[in-house]
């Protein structure tokens, strides 16, 4: 069982990212489950979403407390919430940022970075003020975590993006190629 926690702000598409990751994982032959932190979503407020991936049917229905990886869609969250909470030792932190992995200090964890905001802006995903970075970050997920191939991620994005399907697919591909691994 592999468990992922997404941190984002309402409106950035963290919940959709978790859903699309689950869809891509199922395309690849896994079982998967995705759910939001069951809260009252407001634009801009910190939100969490989760994906479980396993070879077997997933029976588990409780929250994810000890994820194997966390994905941070908005770097400004890192001053607000502890994104490493419960993260398994040696777990991966994937951050949307213009910085490099060595600019972060997370002892005991692996850091990967991608400039998903820049990629989203380039493809005009969302608005200038509020770019939607979820498809880019999923491409980066494939690179950094690697258990779901980028081809399935792109296929899932094409089928599920509500608009700009090609631009979203391109964003994922570019993010996949430009993700920096800090290990």
């Amino acid at each position, binding site marked *: 069982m592999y468990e992922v926690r997404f941190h984002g702000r309402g409106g950035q598409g963290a919940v959709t990212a*978790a*859903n699309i990751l*689950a*869809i891509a994982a*199922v395309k690849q032959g896994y*079982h*998967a*489950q*995705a*759910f*939001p932190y*069951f809260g*009252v979503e407001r634009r801009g407020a910190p939100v969490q979403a989760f994906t479980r991936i396993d070879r077997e049917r*997933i*029976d*588990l*229905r*409780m*929250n994810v*407390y000890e994820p194997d990886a966390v994905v941070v869609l908005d770097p400004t969250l890192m001053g607000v919430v502890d994104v490493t909470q419960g993260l398994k030792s040696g777990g991966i932190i994937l951050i949307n940022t213009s910085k490099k992995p060595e600019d972060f200090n997370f002892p005991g964890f692996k850091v990967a970075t991608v400039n998903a905001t820049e990629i989203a802006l380039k493809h005009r995903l969302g608005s200038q003020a509020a770019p939607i970075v979820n498809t880019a970050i999923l491409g980066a997920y494939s690179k950094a975590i690697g258990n779901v191939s980028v081809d399935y991620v792109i296929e899932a994005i094409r089928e599920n993006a509500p608009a700009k399907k090609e631009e979203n697919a391109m964003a994922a591909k570019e993010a996949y190629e430009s993700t920096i691994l800090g290990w």
Partner: protein
Amino acid sequence: MKAMIRGNESIAYAFKLARVQVVPAYPITPSTLVPEKISEFIANGEMNAEFIPVESEHSAISAAIGASAKGVRVGTATASQGLALMHEVLFIASGMRLPIVMGIGNRALSAPINIWCDHQDMMSARDTGWMQFYAESNQEGLDLGIMAFKIAEDPRVLLPAMVGLDAFVLTHTVEPVEMPEQKDVDDFLGEFKPNYVILDPKKPATLGAFAFPEHYMEFKYGQWIAMQQAKKVIDEVFEEFENRFGRRYRKVSGEFMEDAEIAIVTMGSMTGTAREFVRKLREKGEKVGLVKITTFRPFPKEELISVLKDVKVVAVMERNISHGFGGAVYAELGSAFVNQPSRPKILDFIVGLGGRDITFKTFEEVYGVAKKAIENDVDEVNWVDVNKEAVLKAEGLL
């Protein structure tokens, strides 16, 4: 075909596949996506139905009654306060013997306001004469949604049915669901042909109007008989569904029950986590089993007695509370056993109210008390994962 859908969508797809003709609905968290998805199906031309946006849940169920009395297939969805607002009308639907199917996003009741999961909404509608099914997964939500029409519309039954999906834990969770083919569902369900008077301007009739004391009890006895008949019809429909679609349903399902000394009884989505927990305990050699209740009305008394009679302790875990006594499942299970020559010790565990997460820790505590109860006296009704000290202080008892 496998679809990745949320629990709410499994109800919407069940209605679409059942070719529901009228959907009156009023949105409420967490079941809003059901009417949303259905209006999308209708707008896209994928579903030939009339969607009636109404001004309240009271109107939604009233419109459902009108449409069902015309002899068409009707579905709606609600949750929590919405179901509570429908309450007086729920009796009218069952009293008029209308086979309406309603999806429920099982959610807590106010106060305090809470949008998260428990079963208080449906449990509070226990005595309205509706059949009740609780889904463990989105697949079950879809399958039970389809089967509910066949059961409800059976001439031996003609009662409305609720299918509960746990708020957020199912309603908002995306997971793979095997989507049946339309033609298979058509063959399975057939067309709804009402046996009794339907509203028809050419043949005026009055339905559900008035009954003097000379007649009222016969109507109620009729509902009682229909509910008894439903027990058999549910088994038949579950079996036919299994033969056609390959997925097995039972009113009560026991797992790991051979030689079990302790049985954990669950309903709804907590069952999955319970199964993982029981599997782990079995690996350690613990004699523990799991019993899932899918059908709560009609109450599967015979099946529960049969699966639980040989265990030492039954731990009922439930997401509802009847203040002043205990949980509804505990109360009914106790009643089911009361005239049996021998019976297990039955304990109640109130868990997961208002969306409090039910985790392995919850099960560990429940199992610990149940194990202790084999040899010792323990409390009959236990609240788990609650800050009791804070409450007792606030109530002036500590």
